[in-house]
């Protein structure tokens, strides 16, 4: 059992869940206090001691099923299916079993059925599960590496189980029952049952081997890592994930807000706070043992956001806008513009409407710009330079989001240079990876010199990191 828990811990680690040694030990002791019989308790106990973050729970649940209970469920399913098939062929399994039991008790002691044969005949799934696990371990299934070996290890597991012997024993049983006077019809049914049982056994063993392959397979684990929303690329999101992502963004923003209030307070000391000092030192007769300073608060930055909303980066823009507007209190002023080719001011949109509605409006152009043209960063920057440069002063952070794919238009980098000269800093978030910058129609390399911070931003974790840098 303990080795299984260790294995499970490794599995969790491979899937990107951090489990420390201390936590694994906790899991051991916790499991010791409970019985294994109740799978639900077992699951809760492991979870309480190893999983400490809400976003890891889905991964845990999936892995737990894969590792602990999935196989049993499969076993039940397969045998259920078998019973169903028999039923279709006009055989009432229950009645057959009853009759068999009756016959066998009459022939008492005569039967030398091996354990496997017994477990199969009585369909004792718990017993079967244990036997298969044991046989698989002896067959070395845990060393499986690829699909091609599934057949081999399944065969070896079957051998280890003694499946052939069990078939013979069951055949023998049928023969003897026939001799003892079982009706030919029922003997035929019994033979069919035996055949089906062996077939199902082969199926479940194969299934077990495949599961083992999955748990060993690193690529498969990678999938879990990617599934975690914070790591998931904005490019590939389903509708449902967008909805879930929205919640995650809100939580993340809330967290940054909290840290913000704490960290900002810890800024340098200000002037002596006479009032507080006297109050605090009353107990010492007014002698100022403890000196208290007024805390100077850091100025909140102003923010100007320029968002590319062309279809290629719309999702990234969506979450960044949501993120920034959830953090509104962290900024004194916030202006947002969207562009594809022409530039549109969507600041009023956000004032009038609920954030989520406003974002959806902004993304489809918000009645201010045409989103069905081709991206032209140069034109958008020039437009901003001409009409909105006054929105920027030396306390403003300019946040630009886009892939800088300019469709071979004039990049007009000098506009960005002027913006850069006026602003406190310019931050560019690019959803493409740095190796693609400057290739093809990307003009990122032309803009690079005028940005203070340039970050690749493709998932929530990266976004959170950048935002953290901006607001603090």
């Amino acid at each position, binding site marked *: 059992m303990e080795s299984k828990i260790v294995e499970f811990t490794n599995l969790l680690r491979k899937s990107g869940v951090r489990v420390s040694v*201390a936590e694994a030990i906790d899991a051991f002791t916790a499991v010791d206090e409970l019985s294994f019989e109740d799978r*639900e308790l077992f699951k*809760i*106990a492991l979870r*309480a001691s190893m999983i400490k973050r*809400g976003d890891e729970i889905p991964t845990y649940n999936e892995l737990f099923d894969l590792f602990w209970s999935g196989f049993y469920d499969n076993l039940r399913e397969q045998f259920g299916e078998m019973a169903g098939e028999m039923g279709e062929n006009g055989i009432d399994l229950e009645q057959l079993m009853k009759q068999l039991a009756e016959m066998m008790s009459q022939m008492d002691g005569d039967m030398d059925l091996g354990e496997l044969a017994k477990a199969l005949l009585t369909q004792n799934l718990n017993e079967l599960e244990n036997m298969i696990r044991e046989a698989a371990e002896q067959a070395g299934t845990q060393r499986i590496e690829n699909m091609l070996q599934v057949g081999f290890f399944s065969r070896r597991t079957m051998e280890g189980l003694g499946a052939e012997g069990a078939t013979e024993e069951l055949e023998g049983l049928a023969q003897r029952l026939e001799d003892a006077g079982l009706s030919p019809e029922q003997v035929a049914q019994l033979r069919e049952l035996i055949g089906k049982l062996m077939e199902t056994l082969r199926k479940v063993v194969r299934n077990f081997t495949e599961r083992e392959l999955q748990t060993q397979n690193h690529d498969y684990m990678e999938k879990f890592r990617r599934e975690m929303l914070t790591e998931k690329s904005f490019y590939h999101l389903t509708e449902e994930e967008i909805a879930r992502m929205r919640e995650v963004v809100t939580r993340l923003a809330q967290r940054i807000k909290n840290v913000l209030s*704490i960290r900002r307070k810890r800024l340098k000391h200000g002037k002596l706070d006479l009032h507080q000092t006297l109050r605090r030192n009353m*107990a*010492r007769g007014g002698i100022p043992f403890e000196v208290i300073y007024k805390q100077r608060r850091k100025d909140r930055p102003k923010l100007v956001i320029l968002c590319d909303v062309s279809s290629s980066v719309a999702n990234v823009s969506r979450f960044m806008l949501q993120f920034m507007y959830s953090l509104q209190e962290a900024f004194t002023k916030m202006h947002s513009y969207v562009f594809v080719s022409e530039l549109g001011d969507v600041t009023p949109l956000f004032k009038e409407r609920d954030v989520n509605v406003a974002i959806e409006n902004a993304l489809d152009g918000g009645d201010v710009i045409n989103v069905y043209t081709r991206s032209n960063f140069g034109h958008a920057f020039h437009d901003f330079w001409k009409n909105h440069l006054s929105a920027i002063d030396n306390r403003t952070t300019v946040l630009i989001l886009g892939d800088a794919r300019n469709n071979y238009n004039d990049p007009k980098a000098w506009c960005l240079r002027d913006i850069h000269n006026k602003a406190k800093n310019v931050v560019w978030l690019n959803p493409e990876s740095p190796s693609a910058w400057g290739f093809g129609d990307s003009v990122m390399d032309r803009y690079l010199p005028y940005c203070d911070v340039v970050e690749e931003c493709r998932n929530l974790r990266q976004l959170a990191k950048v935002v953290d840098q901006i607001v603090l």
Partner: protein
Amino acid sequence: MFESVDHVVSQLEKQGYICDKRIGTVVFLANKLGKPVLVEGPAGVGKTELAKVVSAALGRELIRLQCYEGLDEAKALYEWEYSKQLLYTQILKDKVAETIQGATNLRDAAEKIGAEDSVFFSERFIVPRPLMQAITSEEPVLLLIDEVDKSDPEFEAFLLEVLSDFQVTVPEIGTIRAKSQPLVFLTSNDAREMSDALKRRCLHLWIDYPNEELECRILNTKVPGIDERLADEVVTVMHRIRDLDLKKTPSISETLDWARALLALNAGELEDELVNDTLSVILKYEGDVQKAQGELSKLLEKKSAEAAAEKPQPAPAAAAKKGILH
């Protein structure tokens, strides 16, 4: 002491706290292994309440430390009682003079005073704060560190010593070990991610909104005298509201408040007008109220339509009236 998970659940139920096996298991393990529990979940699902009922069920004293921004060691652990020390020196002036008698110079006098300074830095002059109280108590207690996410990261780091070894270090005195090991509950609203070091030392319990059946049971226990049908309706409506995208999602405590309000108004069942009037009990933002109103009127309409289908007689009568008017 709890004997099994089911025992925990039934004991908590006796205290009026209805919970599922998940909570029961974690409480059982915490008690058995002597590990702190970090309870997380949305506001108002009964995190603090859990600690209270566990202390009641175990018959342990509850010591509560409410965390807030700027909470420091002096308020959480101990403080030197400066004024008392001062008072003692004043009263014991003669004794002090006696001690330094025979000292020929300042250095000697200082040495002599120095030899006695443990008198002034002893447990006598310490004001114990919740953490110290929990550790020095003769009887095992239950320590509740509430809203630990509101505290500063520094404080969290300092908690580690207390949580893992159940000891505190006072520089002037030395290390004070726990006489009896307290059972520790930490609650957090997930406003801030707790550090891995802290999480590692705790069992983790995530309490979410209960399912409808559980919430019904909670409602019936906590608000005695409520009509069962009304309780069902209230819970259904609450679950519907929680599915909406709201600024502040109402919690169990709001369900209870609402049920009590309805009871006070002698309501037998939910009606459109009644719901609109009392919606402010569960929703705290105007925007939320508007959103919920739209959704709820749909729900109630459907309900009344169903009711009308059940007893179709009044409907034709109303239609007939209309006919006369025209």
